[in-house]
């Protein structure tokens, strides 16, 4: 094999092509030389050395010429990076955004517990006893009695055997799914699943099959398909685990999953259900126990319920609850549990006190639902904007009825509505997504959040303002 010298005058691709070839040629030559040396034949002829040094020089040239891409792509000057809203002070009911005092319709503080004095006091007591950080993961002296108490209380509240807490809401379902579902298993998941579920699925390396959002017939269709495939290969089917992953209240669409039908499908096709209840915990159900209580489904029928404590409980972190048979496994194989520091005790105490308040005052759930229905009704019929979400969902979306053609201009129009409202004392936000990473990117929308602290006047004011904004900007 002759070594073509890299001609300086050739194009970039041309050089790369010859360089690739000569690279291989160099290593081939070296391998040949090594073999012959091993057989004891001394190949130290001048020609051999000349060829070898020629290839060494070329390698050095390749190393010098190679240019990687920049670590981060250059930001274009025409589109300056949008900056964050700066909130001064607590993000509670009355919030100061970018210097403007507004009423908060954007933080997921559904039960208004962010600002609660009892919660803050408990956190203070805990701070004075334990300090801030836990300085270790759960396995290495990072388990505090407050963690054990919180797990106990959550299990009792949800009426399951056991609960396990994580120190970060996003990591909860993203660590739980890969602990059970491995390569070769099958997961059926709704198209509108949130990003943390998608990351959990990606980490699990299982086969993923999407079904249309909230469409039980579509789900049954793929389950039947899977059953037919199983019959072709029963040995493999006996060891392949199957799971359905759904959310109680979907973050991206505000819809509620039809849980009774799912349970029927579970027993018919022998699939396990993982339920993600971040938005429905502390919102649905008579006592706030979530979508199982809302529909009256036996909680033991659901294999795993996962939720984060960052919405209704106004703390930080997440938890999974279910039967001991299922939950205990995560204590050794949940990555976000074993390899990460545990939840700071003051945040755990704040969550316990928030749970106490939820148990004492059961009226707030009904109150919250009434307020949701109120604003939902008020916002119907705005020309140009449509309301997406159930009437009892406290986090719903306002989407453009007719898209302007490109996502960018839609986003800009919605931004103008948001800014119009912010200037007039209503803090709203658009729902943000990572456009390139989402599997099924939802259309751009404004997310409206209802909390129990908002009065009826404020709700009406917000609804009127949004109507006004839609009229001024969309007409």
């Amino acid at each position: 094999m002759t070594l073509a010298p890299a001609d300086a005058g050739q194009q970039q691709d041309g050089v790369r092509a010859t360089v690739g070839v000569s690279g291989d040629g160099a290593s081939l030559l070296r391998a040949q030389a090594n073999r012959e040396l091993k057989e004891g034949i001394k190949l130290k002829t001048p020609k051999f050395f000349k060829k070898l040094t020629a290839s060494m020089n070329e390698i050095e040239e390749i190393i010098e010429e190679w240019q990687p891409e920049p670590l981060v792509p250059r930001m274009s000057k025409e589109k300056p990076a949008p900056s964050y809203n700066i909130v001064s002070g607590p993000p509670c009911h009355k919030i100061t955004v970018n210097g403007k005092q507004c009423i908060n319709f954007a933080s997921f503080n559904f039960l208004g517990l962010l600002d609660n004095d009892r919660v803050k006091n408990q956190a203070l007591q805990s701070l004075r006893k334990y300090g801030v950080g836990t300085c270790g993961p759960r396995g290495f002296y990072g388990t505090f009695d407050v963690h054990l108490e919180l797990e106990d209380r959550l299990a009792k509240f949800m009426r399951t055997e056991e609960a396990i807490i994580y120190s970060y809401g996003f990591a909860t379902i993203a660590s739980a799914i890969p602990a059970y579902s491995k390569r070769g298993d099958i997961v059926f998941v709704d198209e509108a699943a949130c990003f943390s579920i998608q990351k959990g699925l990606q980490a699990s390396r299982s086969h993923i099959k999407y079904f249309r959002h909230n469409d039980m017939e579509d789900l049954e269709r793929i389950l039947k398909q899977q059953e037919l495939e199983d019959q072709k290969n029963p040995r493999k089917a006996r060891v392949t685990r199957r799971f359905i992953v759904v959310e109680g209240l979907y973050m991206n669409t505000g819809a509620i999953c039809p849980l009774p039908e799912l349970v029927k499908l579970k027993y018919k096709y022998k699939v396990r259900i993982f339920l993600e209840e971040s938005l429905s915990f502390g919102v649905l159900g008579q006592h706030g126990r979530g979508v199982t209580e809302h529909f009256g489904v036996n909680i033991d029928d659901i294999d795993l319920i996962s939720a984060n404590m960052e919405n209704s409980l106004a703390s930080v972190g997440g938890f999974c609850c279910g039967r001991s048979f299922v939950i205990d496994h995560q204590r050794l194989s949940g990555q976000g549990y074993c390899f990460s520091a545990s939840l700071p005790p003051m945040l755990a105490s704040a969550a316990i006190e928030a749970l106490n308040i939820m148990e004492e005052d059961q009226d707030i759930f009904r109150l919250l639902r009434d307020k949701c229905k109120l604003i939902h009704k008020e916002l119907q019929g705005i020309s140009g904007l449509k309301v997406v979400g159930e009437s009892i969902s406290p986090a719903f979306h306002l989407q453009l009825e007719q898209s302007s053609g490109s996502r960018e201009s839609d986003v800009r129009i919605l931004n103008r509505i948001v800014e119009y409202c912010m200037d007039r004392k209503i803090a709203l936000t658009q729902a943000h997504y990572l456009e390139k990473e989402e599997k099924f990117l939802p259309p751009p929308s404004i997310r409206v959040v209802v909390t129990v602290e908002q009065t009826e006047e404020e709700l009406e004011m917000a609804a009127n303002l949004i109507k006004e904004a839609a009229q001024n900007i969309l007409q």
Partner: protein
Amino acid sequence: MAHTSAPVRNGHPLHPGKNDVGLRNGFSKNGQHLHHTKGGLYKRPFTESFEQAPLYVAVLTYMGFGVVTLFGYFRDFLRAWGFEKCNLAQEREEQKDFVPLYQDFENFYTRNLYMRVRDNWNRPICSLPGPQFDLMERVSDDYNWTFRHTGKVIDGVINMGSYNYLGFAENDPTFLTSVEESNEKYGSGVCSTRQEMGNLDIHEELEKLVATFLGVESAMTFGMGFATNAMNIPALVGKGCLILSDELNHTSLVLGARLSGSTIRVFKHNNMQSLEKLLRDAVVHGQPRSHRPWKKILIIVEGIYSMEGSIVRLPEIIALKKKYKAYLYLDEAHSIGAVGPTGRGVVEFFELDPRDIDVLMGTFTKSFGSSGGYIAGKKELVDFLRLHSHSAVYATSMSPPVAEQILRSMKCIMGLDGTTIGIQRVRRLAENTRYFRQRLNEMGFIIYGHEESPVVPLLLFMPGKVGAFAREMLKRKIGVVVVGFPATPITEARARFCVSAAHTTPMLDKVLNALDELGDHLVLKYSRHTRSSRPELYDETSFEMDD
């Protein structure tokens, strides 16, 4: 272990690679200690030690595992045939015909080996995780299948397990006033993401301070250290990129690398020849099969490796990275605040320029007594992450009192609060580390790692000794962390000590005396060198006559 004031002869230009031939991590098989300066890259000698145990130890370890495995099969047989009660939780009756959730052989190790020694982990505490803490007493009536708390508290246990390097895990009201105020002002939660309504003014202040502390342009903070790695590596590299990751990288780095979709190649732990070979192959041959050039090459290393106690060879990596135009991601979870004359991490330890490292990452859990992580570097990098990091878009931002604790502890280390407490703690930690390691070496234990790393792994090797060591130490009121297979290689079970600036010399002496006693009782002193406490006067242990 010499504190060399004598001129260093290794790495002399006339004997360039003499000590590097056939070495693992710069160590020869018979356990000679190597200090080298690699032709001026290191400003002072780099001394690490990974002594190998005698052969009989490995044989006995495998025998121990063999015996436990045989017993495991026997017990499984008894359980399957009903001779022995099965204490494990069972599947529901209604779901008995579903595909089993766990395979039996996956849990073999958990059922039969881990269960026997399970009481040494997950020990609950009921006080501050400071240099001393209170453990809740926990007993098991059925050989570790279930535990119950007796309600009693074992107090005054010396804490050698928590990551409290600078002693900021404290509850002294004078130090915590600002944290209490921020709790009163903000509450504990945030209920929104950074991009939406969760970007508080305290976050902006914190990020400016972190950037100043590290000496870089800009920084961004996240609520969880694990998630910082798992969510930001995919934002930086993707398909068509190459990740060169150290063998012993932490799970969060491995998960981040896998989620990114890039090709991952692993180089031997801290071994620069292995890394250079991979870099050369990558640049010269390009992507497999197509030979197209790689888009980016990212080298991922950690500052201090928490299971080995070794410090990364940063000057050599930076030299390699500049030659091959790769990017460097440095995870300083354990080293930030813990090494370096003013606590700025491995970059300061090696007297390097922080601008040479492309992505500086670290966590606030260990040296700052708080929780969360950060990524720092050039302004373009951080601006890019503000828009594209998964955490900024989908995950809740850091809790305000937690952020305030980081602010106050960082100001204390930098001296901005007007006191010298911070720098005193950094120096105290270095003194404690040196003292602890020196005494352990004198006693004859095998200790891994760099001589200045506050993470001290003490090798136990055999699975039986793992359980015995931890229990005996607890009887003497010392809490230690022991780790075995699968977190470590099968023959290298160890106890890992984390030295803290808050440990006083009497506390360390108590621990060392207990270790001395236990070392004789359990036969743990495997080291085959005798080391005296007098300083060595030469660096070379053999002399060659130059002709």
